[in-house]
């Protein structure tokens, strides 16, 4: 079995799906000849030719808008937007068309397309390269929003996203693109979109998190374990639709919940999870549902980023707070 890191898993999934399905095409800024600034699309052009993997002008709205037309006319575009912060010029196409074409046309025109981009901070990058905009997409009906955190999930979810008959926003936590490797099966497999994974079982509280924060959470959990505290950790994997069942079932067991997100705190994904828990498992709550998130400020440049990114230490502190809350 190949041992791959996250970005290699993306590449692997693309490679296999392009092989399997000639209607899959890949494009974006520097995504063709160069293989992407993170090398996620490397070798695809060489292997499948310039018609199926190609470079585009710097034109995010154009990339997404053209993909809409292509998806209608028989292709399955998997487009790369270069960074999370450069998805914004494409938001009009995404919100006004990508999410709506099926509904608008009463099912006649559907958009089997994927919009991929590296997301999140922690790579000491320039401004706009460290954004966590997942909630902006999650709020939009008609979209699905996915963010895997391991090479295994990356491959299985990307294949699922490409095969999904509906558009999928596929966010890749760039901080862990190369952070670790994992065995990834050669055969093609699919991880169901909308299913979270319990990455660690526990009794004392439920921690829900996703993307790069999964690893930081697990570090904090290790510390907690040393103190005899056993959190259950849920890696969302899909942000929209939320896996309600997984979350609620766990909270019913533990009575306590902490949501860890890299995005700024207010009006984020964590809030929705807490609202949901309130609606579905209120009477099981033994402590106030809590959040660890970035403060409500613009992501600082690298020399200030350490004050911004939620850290294992911060998560650990919050775990204690939630667990020690008396009822």
């Amino acid at each position: 079995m190949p041992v791959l890191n996250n970005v290699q898993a993306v590449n692997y999934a693309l490679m296999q799906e392009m092989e399997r399905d000639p209607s899959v095409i890949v494009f974006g800024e520097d995504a063709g000849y160069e293989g992407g600034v993170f090398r996620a699309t490397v070798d695809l052009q060489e292997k499948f030719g310039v018609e199926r993997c190609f470079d585009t002008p710097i034109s995010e709205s154009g990339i997404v808008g053209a993909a809409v037309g292509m998806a209608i006319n028989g292709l399955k575009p998997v487009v790369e937007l270069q960074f999370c912060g450069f998805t914004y010029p494409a938001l009009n196409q995404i919100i006004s068309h990508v999410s709506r074409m099926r509904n608008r046309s009463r099912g006649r025109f559907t958009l089997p397309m994927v919009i991929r981009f590296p997301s999140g901070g922690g790579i000491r990058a320039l401004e706009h390269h460290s954004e966590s905009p997942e909630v902006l997409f999650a709020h939009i009906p008609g979209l699905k929003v996915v963010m895997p955190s391991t090479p295994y999930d990356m491959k299985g979810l990307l294949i699922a996203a490409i095969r999904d008959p509906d558009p999928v926003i596929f966010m890749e936590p760039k901080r862990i693109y190369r952070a670790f490797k994992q065995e990834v099966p050669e055969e093609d497999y699919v991880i169901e979109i909308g299913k979270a994974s319990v990455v660690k079982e526990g009794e004392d509280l439920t921690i829900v998190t996703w993307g790069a924060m999964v690893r930081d959470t697990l570090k904090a959990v290790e510390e907690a374990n040393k103190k005899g505290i056993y959190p259950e950790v849920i890696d969302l994997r899909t942000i929209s639709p939320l896996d309600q069942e997984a979350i609620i079932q766990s909270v019913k067991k533990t009575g306590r919940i902490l949501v860890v997100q890299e995005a700024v705190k207010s009006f984020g994904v964590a809030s929705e999870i807490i609202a949901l828990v309130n609606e579905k498992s209120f009477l099981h709550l033994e402590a106030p549902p809590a959040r660890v998130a970035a403060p409500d400020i613009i992501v600082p440049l690298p020399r200030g980023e350490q004050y911004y990114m939620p850290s294992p230490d911060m998560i650990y502190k919050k775990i204690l707070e939630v667990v020690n809350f008396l009822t």
Partner: protein
Amino acid sequence: MLVDQYNPFEGKMLQILDKDGNVLDENLVPQIPEEDLVKLMRTMLYTRIADRKALMYQRQGRMLTYAPNEGQEACQVGSAYALEKKDWMAPAFRELGAWLQRGVDLKTIYLYWYGNEMGSKVSEDIRILPVSVPISSQLLHAVGLAMAAKKRGLDEVSIAYFGDGGTSEGDFHEALNLAGVYKAATVFFCQNNQWSISVPKHFQTASETFAQKAYAYGFKGIKVDGNDILAVYAATKEAIERGRRGEGPTLIEGYTYRLGPHTTSDDPTRYREEQEVDEWREKDPIKRFRSYLVGKGLWNEEMEVQFAQAVDEEVERIFKEVEQSGNTLFDDIFKYQYEKMTPLLEEEYEEYKAFFEERGML
């Protein structure tokens, strides 16, 4: 080629019929079977009648917001006539004539303006995208349609409609630029009807013409008299053929006029002179084409009266059907969000359904 002969930078505009329907240059008259000439006339008339009636129904409080297209029939019918069945159309929202020429039934179109979602569901065998409200966003879809065709080895061409105001949006630029780079077989049809709601065209751009904007993208543009259906057809036909031959995109500026209000919510007397409207009435595309056909012995008053009366009745009948169609089905507003409802959506669906059922609203 017309697109070379009529360089917009030289102030040229393609015109074949003058405003009285006289042929200006026989060499330019496109080859159209007589039968089709009559059909084009009928479609323009049908468009005009259905348009006026929609406006009237709206004034009677029976139709919702409607965007009239009186005056732009030649642009729409003439250009759409140049398409083949396999070609794609990406309209904005004022394209009644193009929809009808493309073969969409009026009931569907009326349903849309009646506020019923089924109005966006065009029959499977007609290649037309739903109404696109966000200005110029549909241009990119047209480019994508043509790019996909090329990649799949199909010789389908796409046409996108938009207005003079539509040229100001970033998406206009990105669409034309991409089409240029990938040599997409897309015809960009700008209906320059002189106004964007209350804003006159010279507030949209300092460019002398809209057609010349093509040259910023490495391809050609042509300005045509948009009230002359022969000119519109000739230019579009050429553009489509070039696209089909792999010669890339073309920008066509149809120089025309919106004779009615922007939409039924708009009162144009607030921002433009009656005199301007009168001047453009003189250049009416239907009047002009009628004279031409009458001159050729293909049309006469009797035919027109008879046809108009028949259409009148048909439109009335269709609209009554539309009125009886009632509301969008409750199920339908949930059903098309995704191929399969998500569990959350399913829950909401059940909750809302119960709520409305309880109240006898379903």
